[in-house]
């Protein structure tokens, strides 16, 4: 029941956004819906046993460790984003215009994201992922100009294409099941228990298409071109929704797919994920070296992160726990960096790194958050991303995958040096003068709180994971091939 409440609250909150003069009401509704969803997700994860798994809604919904963990993660990020939007609306009258429209699409997006996570059926997950895409497209160009509009169009095209590829993959698997006389049903819980019998040729074709489709939706190479453009052009709150919420919905769908179909074609899955992952890290490293815009640089770092996750998933086994840790850290890092970059842009009206200096002096809180976020982005200790990467790398050694290990280390070093060289001059030095002393210059407590919360979580994931939380992470890792 509580699971359904998490997804239904944003839909019910849509009522609060109705009417032409509902800007302030929409804002309050947005915040309340995000807060209540977060509390419900927190209650769910605290009250259920780690191994508890049950279906609901006639088998179409699934409550297990993975769904509860990802639900809490996206609810936390959504609450942080709602607080950010609230703080921006308090100081900027421009933001309040058309706010009800923004809130409406954001609530639909979030509700669809929650239902995609709770789904026990691959096609239902697919439907909700498509809904998140359709709701996100208008958000990308909300109150923005032609460049954002073109980015939103590219996002819509690429996302529709990648999800359609995944759908063709599922249809191929369904056809393969039909040819062997099996019923073509895609319930995750049933597929875990009973190995499906799929006709030869259809099996590798279907598995490859689904993985390719999901990887394209994650922004992995070769279908990555939409991601930097979209993340750069969209408002920071929308970029956070895409990078930390939609990304994790697709990751969970991929986890579920690997959980059910990986053992049918283990070598194909491994080769595909390693190739996509390494190619993405290579492309990200080349683009980070030449990046001049901090938001675009973080966008390329997102491609790198998706690549690391794909490599970890390709390796499987002992890397699985590292992947789960890395996925969680990745969501929190993205939320911190994109929300902080919104504050920086609002103050200095530029995204060029060369135009910015002395952030720590000019905006002490945002400067610190940005610096800590970049440390976590680069995989410094003591953040969760560091331990995630270390576990994935140790798994490469354990599996005697020395070529992948060498490439991985070289590319990550390039990214490390290039990011540090570009970002650190922004943080230290004499501050850049502000163009206009408007009311927007104050740092709001509402944007500081979620960032502080995300950073504390990042450190906790790196230093000390409480045993209850560790059990949940282990359970999720087990589903994607980790040791039980």
């Amino acid at each position, binding site marked *: 029941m509580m699971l359904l409440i998490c997804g239904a609250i944003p839909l019910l909150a849509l009522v609060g956004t109705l009417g032409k003069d509902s800007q302030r009401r929409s804002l309050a509704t947005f915040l309340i819906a995000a807060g209540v969803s977060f509390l419900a997700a927190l209650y769910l994860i605290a009250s259920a046993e780690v191994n508890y798994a049950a279906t609901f809604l006639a088998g179409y919904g699934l409550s297990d460790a993975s769904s509860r963990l990802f639900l809490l993660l996206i609810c936390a990020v959504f609450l942080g984003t709602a607080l950010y939007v609230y703080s921006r609306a308090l100081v900027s009258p421009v933001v309040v215009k058309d706010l009800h429209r923004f809130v409406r699409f954001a609530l639909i997006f979030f509700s669809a994201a929650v239902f995609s996570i709770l789904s026990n059926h691959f096609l239902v997950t697919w439907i909700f992922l498509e809904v998140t895409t359709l709701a996100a497209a*208008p958000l990308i160009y909300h*109150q923005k100009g032609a460049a954002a509009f073109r980015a939103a*169009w590219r996002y819509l095209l690429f996302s529709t*294409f990648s999800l*359609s590829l995944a759908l063709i993959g599922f249809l191929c698997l369904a056809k393969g099941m039909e040819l062997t006389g099996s019923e073509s049903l895609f319930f995750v819980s049933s597929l875990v228990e009973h190995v499906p019998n799929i006709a030869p040729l259809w099996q590798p074709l279907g598995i490859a298409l689904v993985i390719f489709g999901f990887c394209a939706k994650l922004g992995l190479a070769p279908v990555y071109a939409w991601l930097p453009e979209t993340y750069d052009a969209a*408002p920071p709150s929308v970029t956070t929704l895409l990078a930390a919420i939609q990304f994790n919905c697709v990751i969970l769908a991929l986890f579920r797919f690997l959980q059910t179909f990986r053992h049918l074609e283990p070598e194909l899955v491994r080769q595909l994920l390693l190739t996509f992952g390494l190619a993405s890290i290579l492309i990200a490293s080349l683009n980070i070296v030449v990046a001049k815009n901090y938001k675009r640089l973080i966008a390329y770092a997102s491609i790198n992160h998706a690549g690391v996750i794909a490599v970890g998933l390709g390796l499987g086994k002992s890397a699985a726990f590292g992947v789960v840790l890395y996925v969680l850290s990745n969501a929190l890092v993205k939320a911190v960096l994109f929300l902080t970059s*919104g504050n920086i842009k609002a103050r200095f009206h530029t995204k060029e790194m060369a135009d910015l200096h002395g952030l720590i002096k000019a905006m002490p809180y945002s400067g610190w958050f940005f610096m800590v976020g970049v440390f976590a982005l680069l995989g410094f200790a003591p953040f969760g991303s560091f331990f995630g990467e270390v576990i994935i790398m140790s798994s490469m050694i354990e599996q005697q995958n020395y070529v992948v290990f060498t490439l991985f280390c070289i590319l990550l070093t390039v990214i490390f040096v290039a990011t540090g060289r570009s970002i650190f001059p922004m943080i230290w030095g004499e501050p850049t003068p502000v163009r206009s002393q408007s009311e927007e210059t104050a740092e709001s407590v509402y944007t500081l709180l979620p960032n502080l919360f995300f950073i504390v979580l990042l450190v906790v994931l790196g230093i000390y994971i409480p045993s209850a939380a560790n059990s949940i992470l282990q359970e999720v890792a087990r589903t994607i091939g980790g040791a039980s």
Partner: protein
Amino acid sequence: MTYLLLGYFLACFIPLFISSWRTAIFGLALQAGFVALLLARVHDPWTHPGTAIQIAELLFIRMIVLPALIAGTLKRFKTGPELDLIPANLVAWGIAIGLLILSYSMGQRLYPEDLYFALHLGTSAFALLASLLVLALQRNAIGQALGILLFESGISLFESQMQHSQPWFIQFGISLVFLGLIIVASRFLLHFRKLDQAPAQVTEEGDVL
């Protein structure tokens, strides 16, 4: 049923070589009609609610709503009649013919002993590959939208080969998503035409949210 596949193939193939967006939209509507007829022959829509919804989607959304929305948007802005889905040159035509041969070879490989299924698979593979060619070569938003709709048409033809239909509410969800896609895509086309006609009115206001 082979003549229905032939009809679908012609509705997919001919618009690639005719420089007209009206022909392309008419081709998409015809393709939906042929897929609906194919589906009705595989499953009885009166006993399979999933199939009934799928046929309703094909006849109502793909044959009526889609052409009306897209053509209405384009007519409203007095878009010129010409639009090449693929460039009118021998290289592009050669690639299209190559994809045609590849698609039917794949159909034959997967169904070496069943000519009808081989043809069915080959035709859907051709629609999918031709749409990829359109998407790869188009810089125009209208052409890209038509490319993605051709891709969706190829998927619906492929789906019509399935012996088991999905539960009605999953099919209903898929149909709603497709309706949402064409509504959002037509809104985008509308904005693109506005941008083309009055680019100076649109300004970059900055990252306000």
